[in-house]
């Protein structure tokens, strides 16, 4: 069976996030405004005022409360949504960690914005990177339609009985948060149907006042390790589950995104570049242009950052001659891009090949076509066995 086509509306990424959340009929929404996420809160409030969103709206006094409120609501048995960005994510950090440890199936949109120390009301994935080890599922998306679709998928993933983990849907601030595109808005009953499978699953453990059971108790010694193990096992299951949900979504709504990663012209590629978020779209056009020149370059879009899609990446990259990674954030201490560092951990499995790190797009610097051309040229040279630079801060370096 197929879903109805859905209404086509020109909306921003932020609106798309709000639509995605609204369509899933959350019981509780709690969110605190911050640039560039504010529009999500405003749009949800508007939906509520218009009677389209029948959720409990909590006008919290800060992000920390937002995360605590939604995590508690999910553990009480509800469906809950929040959205934040940058310092907001930092301010809720303790609650972010707790939500994951509680296995609270919260869905959160995080509008990527710069964070540490240098004031920048501008795009960058550093906020997401700082919560990398929080135990959440982290997904990065590319455009407004994908935001809406992924938030719906995120509820299916988060609340799945086998998963029960919070999901963070990340999209670049400014470049995508304010990007108005034509977006197909699914019908509510179709979304209901897509999520209905959750109702057929066993009931997850909740804070039911009629049952004396406490959330967040002490895990002592091996019991603690057992719970950590279960958390990791759930994250591991989430990878395959995400692929399945993506496929289901595609079968029903006619749009799918490849699950954990999307490969673009990689099959016969000599070498590949890997990136995420808004840089992917632009990269596609540059790959097409380079292909037209006879350069056998492929592109990998990283959608799932946590859990890290090792198996998929190994399969996609193994046998290539080189790989370059464009990061919109830095890995302090490694002094390279964080996704690059992750990829290097796959070194033995993908086989010996040059792995190049490119840092670009911090603080809303545009990841332009010439920047991506440069990346492809550098990786092409490395693939040919020429010496290469491990880490390149693109906007800071003059091309020789």
């Amino acid at each position, binding site marked *: 069976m197929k879903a109805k086509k859905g209404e086509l509306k020109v909306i921003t990424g932020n609106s798309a996030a709000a639509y995605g959340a609204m369509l899933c009929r959350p019981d*509780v929404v709690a969110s605190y405004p911050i640039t560039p996420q504010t529009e999500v809160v405003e749009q949800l409030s508007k939906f509520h005022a218009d009677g389209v969103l029948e959720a409990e709206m*909590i006008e919290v006094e800060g992000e920390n409360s937002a995360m605590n409120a939604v*995590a508690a609501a999910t553990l009480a048995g509800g469906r*809950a949504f929040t959205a934040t960005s940058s310092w907001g994510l930092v301010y809720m950090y303790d609650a972010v960690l707790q939500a994951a440890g509680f296995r609270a199936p919260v869905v959160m949109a995080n509008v990527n914005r710069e964070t540490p120390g240098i004031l920048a009301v501008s795009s960058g994935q550093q906020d997401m990177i700082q919560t990398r080890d929080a135990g959440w599922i982290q997904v990065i998306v590319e455009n407004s339609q994908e935001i809406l679709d992924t938030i719906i998928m995120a509820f299916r993933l988060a609340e799945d009985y086998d998963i029960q983990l919070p999901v963070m849907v990340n999209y670049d601030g400014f470049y995508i948060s304010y990007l108005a595109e034509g977006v197909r808005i699914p019908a509510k009953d179709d979304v209901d149907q897509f999520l209905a499978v959750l109702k057929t699953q066993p009931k997850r453990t909740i804070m039911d006042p009629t049952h004396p*059971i406490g959330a*967040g108790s002490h895990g002592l010694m091996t019991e603690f390790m057992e719970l950590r193990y279960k958390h990791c096992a759930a994250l591991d299951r989430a990878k395959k589950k995400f692929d399945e949900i993506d496929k289901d979504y595609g079968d029903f709504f006619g749009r799918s995104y490849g699950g954990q990663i999307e490969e673009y012209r990689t099959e016969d590629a000599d070498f590949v570049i890997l990136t995420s978020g808004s840089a992917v779209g632009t990269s596609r056009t540059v790959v097409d242009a380079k292909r037209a020149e006879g350069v056998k370059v492929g592109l990998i879009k990283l959608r799932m950052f946590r859990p890290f899609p090792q198996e998929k990446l190994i399969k996609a990259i193994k046998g290539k001659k080189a790989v370059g990674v464009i990061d919109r954030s830095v890995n302090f201490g490694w002094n390279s891009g964080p996704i690059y560092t992750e990829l290097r951990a796959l070194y033995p499995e993908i086989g010996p090949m040059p792995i190049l790190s490119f840092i670009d797009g911090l603080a809303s610097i545009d990841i332009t076509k010439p920047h991506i051309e440069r990346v492809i040229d550098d990786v092409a040279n490395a693939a040919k066995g020429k010496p290469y630079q491990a880490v390149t801060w693109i906007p800071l370096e003059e091309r020789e």
Partner: protein
Amino acid sequence: MVEKVRKLPKTFQYFKDEDAFAGGVAFCAGCPLELTLRVLSKVMGRQTVIVGTPSCSAPVLYGQNVGAWHKLPYYSCLMTGVASSATGLTRYYKKAGQDVNVVCFTGDGCAADIGFQTLSGAAERNENFIYVCYENEGYMNTGIQRSSTTPIGATTSTTPVGVAGRGKNTQAKNLPLIMAMHNIPYTATATLSHMDDLAKKMQKAMEKKKEGLVYLHIFCPCPVGWGIESDMSIQVCREAVKTNYFPLWEAENGKFKLTQTVSSPDPITKYTKMFKKFNHLTEKELAVIQAEVDHNFAFLKHLTEFGAHGQPAESPENNA
């Protein structure tokens, strides 16, 4: 021989339910906190969800993932997230149509300090839950450090007495008054020595939470942290009331009322000499505390002269 069968005292009528806690739990001998929790479970019954945080109450409330120390649903929070988590729970139960007493249970360190923002936020939003703060005037669980409700002059491990130090050098934050100023439906102070008053206020809390946030501030001296013999904790509660150090009052929809009047208050020294944390104080310093107690009580008295929200003052000329 006919066995004498006697009628239980009136106080027992407040205990609607059996104690939800296991017989033996990890509270210090003589701790009023243990009494507060057990009484709370007896008065409020089983449609109660406790929301708490790391504190002296944590080892008992949290349980372990192989079992629990009590039969109440419990939600464990971080220090920052008690009132906000309670908000999330309350709102979901509301949406789902379940009538639940969501009861936050924290010490003053959480309520007045690190968790205050979320408490204040929940009060402003007038969320339908009960916040119980057990006031032991410091961070007792972590080893007796000062909090913002530690009284002036009191010694703690972070306000020690030495050549230069004379204990805490600033006034305590008057949290129950601050909470009442949020214009919530019900704020009350209570303590263990006045058990009927305490139980009545807990009962009232369950009613008033239907209108919005309820804040109960329960005076809970810490036998270990304050240097009190373990059999003296209730006596200290009683003396705190008798000296007007901790007056028992309630504010219902803005109408302040003393629920226990003290005809001739004892001098504060009768209270301060009961435990160690004020031992070092000179007469002059004690006079400062006495003045502060008098001022706070006079201030409270003035508040009782006003009518409820939306009503004119009862005797405005008294305010002059």
